């Protein structure tokens, strides 16, 4: 079988699996966030944290919940790392330095999972499982909660109430992330991923010499790493490591986990706003971009020139032979189009244009299908922008799902789309302009620039993957990328929740023949165009100097 055909077949299998899971999971999530019943374990948690899960919150209260929880999480995770040296079960690793501890705390709480450390050489069981893995669950649940609050903003009217953050957070973990993770971890273990609490093994190599192999609760962390679009690997090699991702099947299964919730949330959205077709239109937009990016990636990676390319059947540098170009490309596109950032191959080693595709994927704003929750709300913000422009072209002041998009709504949406480009470009520019940060670059020229651009793009968009090559464990990068991750996560959430509150207060406008049909393919096409053009225009000059310059050079 040719590698290309293998890629196509894997893609088809992946789409089929996602399609099968779409309805049940989407409907399940809609029920979870609409139900007024509490499970016993949930009641126990509410009692412990002193929350009243039935109290409706207006947007400022909801936001306070999100921020308070996240601040506590950052402080806890920071403390845990700083105290690692004194904690048992740390495999003898020392405490993490302040800048790296800040970076890592910001990274895992913001669902980014950028790692400036080597997992197997820095983090013991307590931090990995008690700190990082916990954040993998809760940071994902926070993302879904904010998305659900926005969906409620569309679905509800004449009220400012968006639900209860604590209930949404707890239910997301208990009823969605945990059950799927348990099943997923068992699948991974069955396929060869490790799950233990053993120490470091000294293993002899075939060619002589020895190697250190860590044990750990890898499978359980691996599954939530993908499912919660987190991306922080137990090992530095991330999903390229055989303990995390042993074979072709687990690879496909991990991609499935990455895409599962972000795609299925569109069904939840459709259910909750009372029109499944609106959900399908959003799904169509996400799927079009995702599939389009996979095809582009195949085009660049299979069609290389030169003897090495021809011998390997394409750009094999930095890719695992057990996955091949086809599956590595799907993984790379999926991980950068969601805010996952797990990698099974090294994006730095992709062709110039291929590397550009991974960057552009993040630059779209992580919305196709995006991170868990954040993908949906990001996409809905873009839909509002598209509706605003297109809605005018049908001769009405714009409305989306029966809600008017007027001054307040557009102000919040406009602020949302400003945040990440500002963070990415300003931090990159500062890094390039200063003397010290540039010394972290391994390469010079366009590729070196790509390393820095990729780092901030990944951080501000909460992706977490690295281009490799950049030594990011410096005070400058730990601090600035940490800030980019926190600001890139929580500032947009402020605007999303404010927008949700504003939408929920409105009286819905009834549909007429003069209403823009946002559930039609025409709108999907328009939305794809808006996303690509707005991101393209913002980042084109930067991309031109990085991946485009490199990719067009030959």
């Amino acid at each position, binding site marked *: 079988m040719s590698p290309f055909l293998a890629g196509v077949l894997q893609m088809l299998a992946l789409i089929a699996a996602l399609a099968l899971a779409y309805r049940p999971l989407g409907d399940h999530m809609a029920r979870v966030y609409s139900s007024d019943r509490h499970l016993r374990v949930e009641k126990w948690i509410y009692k412990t944290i002193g929350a009243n899960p039935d109290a409706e919150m207006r947007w400022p209260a909801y936001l306070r919940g999100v921020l308070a929880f996240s601040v506590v999480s950052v402080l806890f995770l920071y403390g845990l790392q700083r105290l690692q040296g004194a904690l048992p079960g740390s495999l003898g690793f020392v405490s993490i330095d302040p800048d790296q501890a800040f970076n890592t705390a910001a990274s895992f709480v913001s669902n980014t999972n950028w790692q400036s450390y080597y997992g197997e050489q820095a983090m013991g069981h307590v931090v990995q499982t008690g700190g990082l893995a916990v954040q993998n669950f809760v940071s994902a649940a926070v993302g879904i909660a904010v998305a659900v609050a926005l969906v409620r903003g569309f679905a509800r009217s004449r009220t400012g109430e968006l639900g209860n953050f604590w209930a949404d957070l707890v239910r997301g973990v208990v009823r969605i992330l945990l059950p799927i993770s348990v099943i997923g971890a068992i699948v991974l273990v069955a396929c060869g991923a490790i799950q233990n609490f053993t120490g470091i093994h000294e293993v002899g190599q075939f060619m002589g010499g020895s190697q250190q192999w860590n044990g750990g609760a890898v499978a359980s962390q691996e599954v939530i790493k993908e499912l919660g679009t987190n991306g922080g690997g137990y090992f530095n090699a991330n999903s390229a490591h055989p303990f995390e991702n042993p074979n072709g099947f687990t690879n496909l299964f991990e991609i499935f986990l990455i895409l599962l919730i972000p795609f299925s949330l569109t069904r939840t959205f459709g259910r909750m706003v009372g029109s499944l077709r609106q959900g399908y239109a959003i799904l169509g937009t996400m799927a079009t971009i995702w599939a389009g990016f996979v095809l582009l990636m195949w085009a660049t990676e299979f069609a290389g020139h030169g003897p090495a390319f021809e011998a390997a059947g394409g750009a094999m540098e930095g890719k695992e032979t057990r996955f091949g170009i086809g599956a590595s490309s799907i993984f790379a596109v999926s991980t950068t189009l969601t805010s996952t950032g797990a990698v099974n191959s090294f994006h730095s080693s992709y062709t110039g244009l291929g590397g550009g595709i991974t960057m552009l994927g993040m630059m779209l704003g992580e919305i196709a299908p995006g991170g868990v929750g954040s993908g949906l709300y990001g996409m809905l913000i873009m839909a509002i*922008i598209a509706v*605003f*422009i*297109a809605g*005018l*072209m*049908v*001769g*009405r*002041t714009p409305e989306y799902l*029966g809600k008017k*998009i*007027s*001054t307040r*709504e*557009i*102000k919040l949406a*406009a*602020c949302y*789309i*400003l945040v990440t*480009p*500002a963070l990415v*470009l*300003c931090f*990159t*520019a500062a890094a*390039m*302009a200063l003397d010290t940060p540039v010394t972290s670059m391994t390469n010079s*020229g*366009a590729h070196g620039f790509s390393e820095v651009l990729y780092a901030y793009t990944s951080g501000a968009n909460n992706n977490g993957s690295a281009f490799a090559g950049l030594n990011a464990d410096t005070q400058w990068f730990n601090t600035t990328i940490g800030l980019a991750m926190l600001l890139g996560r929580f500032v947009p959430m402020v605007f999303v929740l404010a927008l949700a509150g504003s939408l929920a207060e409105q*009286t*819905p*406008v*009834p549909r*007429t*023949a*003069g*209403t*823009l*049909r946002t559930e*039609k393919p*025409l*709108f999907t096409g*328009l939305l794809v*165009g808006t996303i690509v*053009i*707005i991101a*393209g*225009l*913002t980042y*084109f*000059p*930067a991309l*031109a*100097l990085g991946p*485009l*310059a490199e990719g*067009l*050079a030959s």
Partner: protein
Amino acid sequence: MTTDVTKQENPMSTASAAPAPHHDVPTGHKPDAGRVAGGLFDPGQLVTSFPDAIRKLNPRVMVKSPVMFVVLVGSVATTLLACKDPGDWFGWAIAAWLWLTTIFANLAEAVAEGRGKAQADTLRKAKTDTVARRLGDSGEERVPGTELRIGDLVVCEAGDIIPGDGDVVEGVASVDESAITGESAPVIRESGGDRSAVTGGTKVLSDRIVIKITTKPGETFIDRMINLVEGAARQKTPNEIALNILLASLTIVFLIAVVTLKPFAVHAGADAQTSMIVLVALLVCLIPTTIGALLSAIGIAGMDRLVQRNVLAMSGRAVEAAGDVSTLLLDKTGTITLGNRQAAEFVPVKGTTAAEVADAAQLSSLADETPEGRSIVVLAKEKYGLRERHQGELAHAEWIAFTAQTRMSGVDVDGRKVRKGATASVIAWVKERGGRVADDADEIANDISEAGGTPLLVAAEDDKGVRVLGVIHLKDVVKEGMRERFDELRRMGIKTVMITGDNPLTARAIAEEAGVDDFLAEATPEDKMALIKREQAGGKLVAMTGDGTNDAPALAQADVGVAMNTGTSAAKEAGNMVDLDSNPTKLIEIVEIGKQLLITRGALTTFSIANDVAKYFAIIPAMFAIAHPGLDKLNIMGLASPESAILSAVIFNALVIVALVPLALRGVRYRPMSADRMLRRNLGIYGLGGLVAPFLGIKLIDLLLSLIPGVG
């Protein structure tokens, strides 16, 4: 107007009062009249408005448009940079074209405003300083019109200019209102009722009236009109503000993209190619200057299009709301049907023929000057070839004119008495004379009533005795083309509701014939108000017309309330638009103009953003192809040199503003169609067109530039 309707349309009464004047105003409705046509654009306006455009360069004015303010700052910056290096032709060329971009934007606004100025000048002539004859405790005193206060009583006699807005409290007069309506035929203004409002600046032609002043000087109708057409009172509308915010945020995004490009370029070794001047040029090309420059012109032109149709919108908000309207309340009489019922058929009772009925009906109607009476004569002529006889032709005839009391008209001639009139009156007349009412007469009359018509009986007393001959079927005549109009509105997603004082049966019949979606029968002002509130509670925007004082609350409640100029001042105060022609059908055009305004904004925004793609393909290779030769592959237009590429993009960016001024003023062509089709069409033209046009334009400009020695 509701009261008029109730009064006139009581089915058993043909005693209609003189119809309100607007019922007689020809609606001018042709099947195509609803298409929103553009005002004429004369390229000469660009020249005459040039001084105004220069005057608008004031930064305090420009800052209101964030996009154009950035261009202004860019113009100043490039000029200063060019001064530093006076030998560099490129810097001067960029600076010059940036200034032109700024001026072109101002020019668009100035041209749009200029069109209103001419109209304002005409209005000012009407607002000459008048002397008012104020009635005080000590009798009449002459005071300047500007000193009048609300509640003052003033006297106007033939030849006087009315000194201020007010209501007639005493007397009747004919008034020349051509100063504001452009209509030269005088109108009657009288105390009480719905025709008591007079407007300052209009002229009394006959008689004497006493007016109670209702508006402060400086805030009169004519003052507001002047402000409106000049654009002085123009405030940004909600949607315009929202669009401005989006444009501002795009401007910030591009500002960041361009500012941060410098360190990237330095690292890439393209420092020299990314001079300040080049970066400013790139920024101006990227920010949405096209829509930023034309946005306010579009708004002014939208108001102006209404003015050209003799509609004054008191706020731009109302014009926007008009585009969103989803329910239209239309009064039956005068809007959907012609002002009056017309005879449609002569139905004989057993033993007579239709021709006999027609003959008797015609004879008895010659003395009936009401429109219904005239229509009987016309029908007899058209259908039965009965020549109209004149009252003088028949000697010794005794004419019985129609009165509201007898509700009958007729003639006594050569021993024959003929009568026609309301059913009850005629039956009483027949019975009084010992005559016989045919059994089927009642039946026929009932059938006609049930079908929504009005029956009139025709009776005669001659040698055959006193008897009923037959029944005249009067019915409402739906204006030609209304059904098509309502179908169009339905396709646009607008529901039409007919408002009438008729009983539900009649109302249903007419509603079905006209093709409206719904009707409100036996409507009282309270019903109308309740209907509006009900629709609004469902999130719908409602538009209506009205002219009576009892319409005022509903007009105020409606999202778009169009008051007829013939209406009372209360109605005019309550509405947010005034139709100087007093033509209720115009509501449909107002909706179309509102939609057109929004479409034009959306189309030019799309065009503006789509344009950027081509500009990148011109400027990025120009800046970076030296540092990264591979990027020359992006120069797909094959532009001659980096300088000419950047300059071409800047020139295109400036010229496209001027090129689109006519479109901004005229508005995008609008045809009623579904939202889907409209989106497809406009996306095709302005989206794809916006992508492709600049590739061609920039290439063309580059070809011309490369002919200049030293550029190519």
